């Protein structure tokens, strides 16, 4: 199965890709967060700057890059989340 998702880029990831968001079609699902991150890296190699200091947020839930498997549906938001610095 695949899903068309909306990827959101924040902070440094936005600067690295030059994009605030993009639609990514036909993302395999279910998918591990590691594979999802790799898919994003293939589209935007400059994101590798964030390697080991990034997590994703799928439907507004944080997901560490690793073995965790996520299921994606059409229209889901997947955010690239560099280290936080609010407050």
């Amino acid at each position, binding site marked *: 199965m695949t899903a068309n998702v909306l990827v*959101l880029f*924040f*902070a*440094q990831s936005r600067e690295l890709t030059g994009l605030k968001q993009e639609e990514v079609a036909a993302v395999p699902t279910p998918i591990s967060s590691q594979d999802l991150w790799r898919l994003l890296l293939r589209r935007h190699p400059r994101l590798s700057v964030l390697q*080991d*200091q*990034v*997590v994703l*947020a799928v439907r*507004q*839930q*944080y*997901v*560490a890059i690793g073995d*965790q498997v996520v299921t994606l549906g059409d229209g889901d938001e997947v*955010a690239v*989340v*560099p*280290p*936080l*610095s*609010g*407050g």
Partner: protein
Amino acid sequence: MSEEPRDVFRLSRDWLSVQEAVDAVNSTSCGAVSVFIGTTREDQVGSRKVIGLEYEAYESMAQSEFTKLCADIRERWPTVMHVCVHHRLGWVKVGEASVVMAISSPHRGDGQQAIQHCIEQLKANVPIWKKEVYDTQEASWKENLECRWSAHRQETPIINQQ
């Protein structure tokens, strides 16, 4: 007559009013309002001076993370009445407030503890980012020590939420 507890979260491009945050948590059942104000320091980084901060947020998720944070506060300190957090977006000059928090409680003990926890957890979990801008026109994205996936942290992040 019991009062409905309020959780108020606002992201604002305008300067923040401490009085507004205090008014948002006011309650005749409360003898204490605990307040925290985070302001922009004029840090020196090497030969460069910070002139301001640029803030951005994943707004919808910041709201949902704030809701979880308030639930956490209320579980730990059940006497807490109202919680209000106002946070800046956009450009914040040195000296201006970037965040104002106010928590009301019947007695000061719970409110004082809750407000400390509130700023710590905001820094750890709420998707907001700031970039320091220097007088040399360079800029650098900051990372909170509290954030589990920041470069400062040694341990592997284990933060998958159910």
